[in-house]
């Protein structure tokens, strides 16, 4: 399988006041297309920061992030936005759905951004929502759905443009255990079935165990566990 993501020598420091925090100290990672990996680590170890850097939402001090052979740290804002739209699907701890739109419309948004064809987008969005088990909730607004349902809508939205890379930052952090399990299973099933690579940040060993490879972020370095 070909290499999808290559992270090389990522350094990142934050300065708050007088102190400088070295969060990432030369992170290395290589991810093949369709591979699923988990990242665990203590709170504050820099997992979210790393994920944001891999998705082009945050900048690095040095190092490079290659996605499909393109160094995204060198891209301008426009190309980066386009890359995020086509190559990356984000899932966050909170769903961040748009309150004013129903489930289908929320899922449609990433598609509409580069092809304003509502009919086509709607068809695809409905398919995905049925797939994540929300066939009965298509026209519910976020405020009328449960936490698990909202997160499933967010998953459907992340898969909408069929991005080769899915980045999930504690996608079950706000859910109870039973819901969390179902949502995560869904996430892994969808990724594997469609051949998307998945990077999932989690605190749960059970969830980490579901991935092909497990990593820990410790001391600013990504270490593979067996």
């Amino acid at each position, binding site marked *: 399988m070909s290499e999808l993501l290559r992270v090389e020598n990522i350094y990142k420091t934050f300065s708050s006041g007088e102190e400088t925090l070295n969060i990432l100290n030369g992170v290395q990672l290589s991810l093949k297309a369709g591979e699923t990996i988990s990242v665990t680590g203590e709170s504050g170890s820099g997992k979210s920061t790393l994920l944001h850097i891999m998705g082009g939402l945050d900048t690095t001090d040095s190092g490079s992030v290659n996605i499909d052979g393109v160094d995204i740290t060198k891209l301008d804002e*426009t190309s980066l936005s386009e890359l995020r739209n086509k190559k990356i699907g984000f899932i966050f701890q909170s769903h961040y759905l748009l309150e004013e739109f129903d489930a289908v419309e929320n899922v449609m948004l990433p598609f509409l951004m580069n092809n304003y064809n509502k009919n086509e987008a709607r068809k695809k969005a409905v398919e995905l929502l049925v797939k994540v088990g929300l066939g009965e909730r298509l026209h519910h607004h976020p405020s009328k759905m449960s936490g698990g349902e909202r997160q499933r809508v967010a998953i459907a939205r992340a898969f909408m443009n069929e991005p080769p890379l899915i980045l999930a930052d504690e996608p079950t952090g706000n859910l109870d255990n039973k819901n969390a399990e179902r949502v995560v299973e869904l996430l892994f099933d969808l990724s594997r079935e469609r051949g998307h690579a998945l990077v999932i940040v989690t605190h749960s060993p059970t969830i980490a165990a579901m991935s092909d490879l497990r990593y820990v972020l410790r001391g600013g370095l990504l270490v593979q566990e067996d």
Partner: protein
Amino acid sequence: MRLENFIARRYIRYSGENREISSSAATVVISIAVGIIFYICAVSIMNGYIYGVMQLSFEVKSFHVQYDGSRQENVPLTGSIEKRREAMKGKGYTEMEEIRLHLAADKEVKYSALYRETNAVLQYSGKSTAVAFLRELPEDIFKNDDGFDKAVRLHKGNKNLAFGEIMISSKTAQKLKIDVGDKLFVSFMENDNTTSVRIRKLTVSGIFSCGLSELDEQLAFIGRETGRRMFRELPYSLMLKLHHYDKAAQFCSAYQADGFMALTNWEEENYNELSALRFQRNIIAMIVILVLFVAVLNLLSTIHITVFEKKREIGILRSTGFVPAQITSLFLYLGLYLAILGIIPGVTVGLLLCYNLNGIIAGAGKILSAVNMMIYNIGNLFFESPKPVTIEFFSSDFYLDKLYTSISITEILFITGLTLLFSVSAALFPALKAGYIKPNEVLKNE
């Protein structure tokens, strides 16, 4: 562009669900609407006032179009002195009648007549004097020119302009302390070249008023036959009334191209007054526009609040592919739609108010009078009070029996466009700020 538009419209539709945004958005919409209502009412009343004043003038004083027969446009540069002097006298009746017949053939012309006028001093029994333009008109002008007939309202006497009679305004009558049937002396000079003052004795046959005292004071009318007996070489001029008063300028320039250089229209004749009135109107409009400008500042804070409330949604839109410019345009659309939401009721209510202004004023007057009467009746139960006066918004001497209102589509489009421009400019600052929001900062796990 279309997606931003779609999202902005949805924000508007659901803005009622968010209390912060909805109350602030409502303030914006209402203040823009009120500003526009102010503008439409102020401008259309001013326009109506200008029209009212101008209408009086072009019906009675300047006419729609006139051909000044005393203008010496054809004085030959060479030839005998007598010939040149003859030309300098201005045009006589026959010559002007030919011009009249030519112009009256135009189907835009509704009424035409020859007239002539000169300054005159009116005296009554040696005690009181007044000055007026003594104007000779055809006797049948009241029958055939209904614009003139309507504007010149008779207070006393008749409108016959019979031989040896004169019509004066109520203002002049007051000054002279004269009444219908009394005789007055008119002294006048025919032109600047002579020094001989002539005097005639005429009977007051009618007292009129147009309602605008500055105009009234200037006017005194005599019939054609009376004029013929009084004046010798006073040149004739031609007056025209058109079917459409607003086509006067067009009419003039068309005929001027044919060589009728002495034609002038009412706008030229009233140039000074017209531009003064228009200046007043524009100042009032500018003040109201300032009010509107302040109203639009609310929009800035509303967009600001919305951006703050929606910052996570902005983050997610950015992470799914929106560039900063798209976030900015999303909030510009929002500003635009809020403005449109204010403009639509503003224009509608403004126009409704203007079209029904007289009814509303009359109604308000009636209500006030009724309340006044009620208070009087209640008060009367306890003590003797003087009977209240009926509340009238227009004094009977005011020139207009009602308020005219008029507003053009251009003026509506102007204020609409200006509001949109203001609104988008006001939205620009918070919208740009929204574009600069960093997605990683708003999407961090909380």
